[in-house]
């Protein structure tokens, strides 16, 4: 029987990206991305530096998923965020009252949330919450 997902090497490898938001920025084309990599996905350069993704941004696009995977109560809202200073991040919205509250351009911030549980071990990661004005 396999270990629960969070107790796996893959999840452990992702800790810096998932918890500390360590990504990379390309010294040649300025592309910001994650997880860390040795070759820029955008331009192929190896001139990459670690880059800490900011926790704030604006909504670039979103959808409202009424048919999520099993064990997730609908609706869930996957969104893509334009991060402050460049780069994008993909995650779920949390604390949205009605999906209509979320509009393109809305200010959002990352908050740590429990994403799911696998055989008693919790999987944590960042979701987005609307910033209160």
């Amino acid at each position, binding site marked *: 029987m396999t270990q629960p997902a969070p107790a796996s090497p893959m999840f452990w490898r992702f*800790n810096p990206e998932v*918890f*500390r938001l360590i990504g990379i920025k390309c010294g040649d084309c300025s592309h910001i991305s994650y997880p860390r990599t040795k070759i820029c996905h955008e331009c192929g350069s190896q001139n990459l530096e670690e880059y800490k993704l900011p926790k704030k941004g604006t909504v670039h696009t979103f959808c409202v998923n009424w048919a999520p995977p099993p064990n997730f*109560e609908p609706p869930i809202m996957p969104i893509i965020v334009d991060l402050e200073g460049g780069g994008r991040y993909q995650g779920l919205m*949390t*604390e949205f*009252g009605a999906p209509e509250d979320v509009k393109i351009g809305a200010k959002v911030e990352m*908050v*740590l*949330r*429990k*994403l799911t549980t696998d055989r*008693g*071990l*919790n999987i*944590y990661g960042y*979701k987005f919450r609307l910033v*209160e004005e």
Partner: protein
Amino acid sequence: MAGIIGYGVYIPLYRIEQKEAAIPWGSWAGGEKAVCGADEDIVTMAAEATDNAMKHAGVNSAQIGAIYIGTASSPYIEQHVAPILAETLGLRPETTMIDYSGSLNAVANALLGCLDAIAAKRITCGLVIGAENRATALGTEGDANFGAGAMAMVIGTTGTIADFEGLHTYSTFFLDRWRSAKDSWVSNLNDYRFDREYGYQKHVAEACKGLLEKLDRKAQDYTYTVFAQPDDRIASLPSKDLGIQKEGLAPGIASILGDLGSCSAFVSLAGILDKAKPNETILLASYGSGASNAMSLTVRNQIDKKRRLIVPLEKYINRKQYITYTSYLRVKEHVKRGPY
């Protein structure tokens, strides 16, 4: 002695009136309380409280020598959550990371551990965090009363907004509320008057008396008194023993946020510090399972200088959205979708 360099709180968005969880079962409860969202737990609450505390304190992760987290609702009996928070903060592996649990005195014990480490010069600066989201059994008193929240403090010796001057513990073998390792809820059988008087009142009063003797002070001298609040009225019992005036007591939060367990006194403390002025004094006491830690604090000038960096408790109290009892049942996992 060391003091608080910065602090923060977190209260979940969701609320339910306590009576909603009591009336269907033939009982009554007043007030309302905070409820974690389906994607929240003590780790996620602690994370936001800690972020707020770090911003207020103005320290960076490299300066943190230890992280202590106290809770009675850890998702794990074997596995600790301090390293998860350490990961989000980027703390070095050399950082001491300790979970305190076992009673509602856990957060006060975490603070004690941190202060001891600083006094022993093992560290100069530490994080003390409390978070609570206790598991309850459907239809019980606890299910109606228990709330959710978190508080975090950066403890150290430089740039403090309030300093600890003394600490005294008073503990005996006393059984009131319990949760066994085999149970997934906190018990509700209690002899309320016995537990209240011989448990809470006795231990809090004795801890404070011992502290006051050490410091050669009188309870009435304190500007504020902050005791753990399983309910809004219980703090008045040891206060009377100590001769404390009602006006000095911290406002009741149990009827607004619910019983916050081990972080109750500390969330209250944050609310007090949000408004406290330099040179004011605070008498603080926790209680859990026959143990009480009493502490004395004096507020410093720094508090005014950094006040704008605080995210006040009031902001979290006023940020709220009510949920239905059916949503409550689902989010507390009292009801689960059928398997197939």
